[in-house]
């Protein structure tokens, strides 16, 4: 696929964006007809709701947190532990919140009918997991390291290795869907989705950290990745409302 857009795939860094992703990032072609073009309307603060859905342990099934044990055999690939804390901006743990993940297999193929990348599916890997954070806000998954894959956005476009994360937090307006990356990926510099976060310091927050203490001897490499949820539409945290 030839690159016909005038704008470059990756724009220069711009720290003024801070943690905000540039939603109309031109290098990511799917934004063009999908991202709203009119300014967002601000709801007056007194009409914000401070509630969000609460999920209990009944939502979690056996092996939901261990993606390597959801089938009869073991999936191919490099077994890893991915763990971290879900925190608010004041560093307080967000407890009992649902964390959902999904990812490609070790060959870079999703178990999804739309994904036609000619890499093998793994009969022993579905690529989906979920868990609740514990009293320290900690989540933990065992999975395999996802492969990179081509995605057709531009000529020779490949996504860096990543795991998709979905989080609820205490308010519906604080919901976060994001992607966790792996340190040192050579594809970072070419990826428009990663670079739609224009502030390089904010991009760093999307990259997990290899951790030898999390690594299980003779079993799995360990990665740590903390997630910080914003204050949401209310602009305050629940503690401050007391």
């Amino acid at each position: 696929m030839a690159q016909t857009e005038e704008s470059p795939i990756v724009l220069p860094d711009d720290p003024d964006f801070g943690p905000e992703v540039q939603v109309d990032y031109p290098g990511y072609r799917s934004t063009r007809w999908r991202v709203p073009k009119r300014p967002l309307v601000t709801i007056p603060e007194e009409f914000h709701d401070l509630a969000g859905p609460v999920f209990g342990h009944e939502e979690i099934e056996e092996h939901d947190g261990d993606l390597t044990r959801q089938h009869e055999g073991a999936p191919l690939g490099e077994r890893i532990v991915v763990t971290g804390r879900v925190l608010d901006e004041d560093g307080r743990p967000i407890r009992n919140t649902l964390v959902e993940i999904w990812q490609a297999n070790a060959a870079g193929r999703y178990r999804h009918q739309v994904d036609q990348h000619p890499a093998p599916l793994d009969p022993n890997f579905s690529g989906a997991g979920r868990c609740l954070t514990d009293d320290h806000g900690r989540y933990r998954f065992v999975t395999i390291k996802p492969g990179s894959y081509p995605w057709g956005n531009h000529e020779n476009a490949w996504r860096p290795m990543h795991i998709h994360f979905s989080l609820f937090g205490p308010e519906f307006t604080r919901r976060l869907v994001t992607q966790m990356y792996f340190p040192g990926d050579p594809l970072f510099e070419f990826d428009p989705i990663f670079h739609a976060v224009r502030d390089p310091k904010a991009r760093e927050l999307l990259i997990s950290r290899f951790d030898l203490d999390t690594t299980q001897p003779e079993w799995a490499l360990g990665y740590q990745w903390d997630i910080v949820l914003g204050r949401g539409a209310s602009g305050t945290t629940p503690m401050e409302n007391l």
Partner: protein
Amino acid sequence: MSLPRTPSQTVGPYYAIGLSRKPQNELVARNAPGATMLIGQLIDGQGAPISDGMIEAWDAGGKRWGRSGTDADGRFSFVVAKPDAQPGQAPRLDVLVFARGLLRHELTRVYFPDEADANAADPVLSALDEPDRATLVAEQEDGALRWDIRTQGDRATVFFTH
């Protein structure tokens, strides 16, 4: 102490393997009192259906939540009941829209067509011009509620900061 927020990234085209493993689109049971279908299409700026979108609906008063993927025609569906109104406001559902191409999800609301007086008095709805207001009110259609979400264009749905 203030920690920097983790930035948002798109849900991508393959969210269904993680987020739609089983149907979750019933905010209330189908046989619950007042239960009705809320159906609609998610449509892009070229008028094309968004077939890989995901919609979440939330009734804050009743603490009811649901999630629906969109199909090949961009269609989503929920089983809902009209929420209790909060003082001075019209009954509504809060709605989040996720899709490939949306690097951050969008927040909107759906109001009910048989609440004309409450809708006219609602502080958020009444602050909008009429064409915009209409984008947030469902219509009656064949015994169900019909509400389309347009991300762009002349009849683009109103989205809110979050």
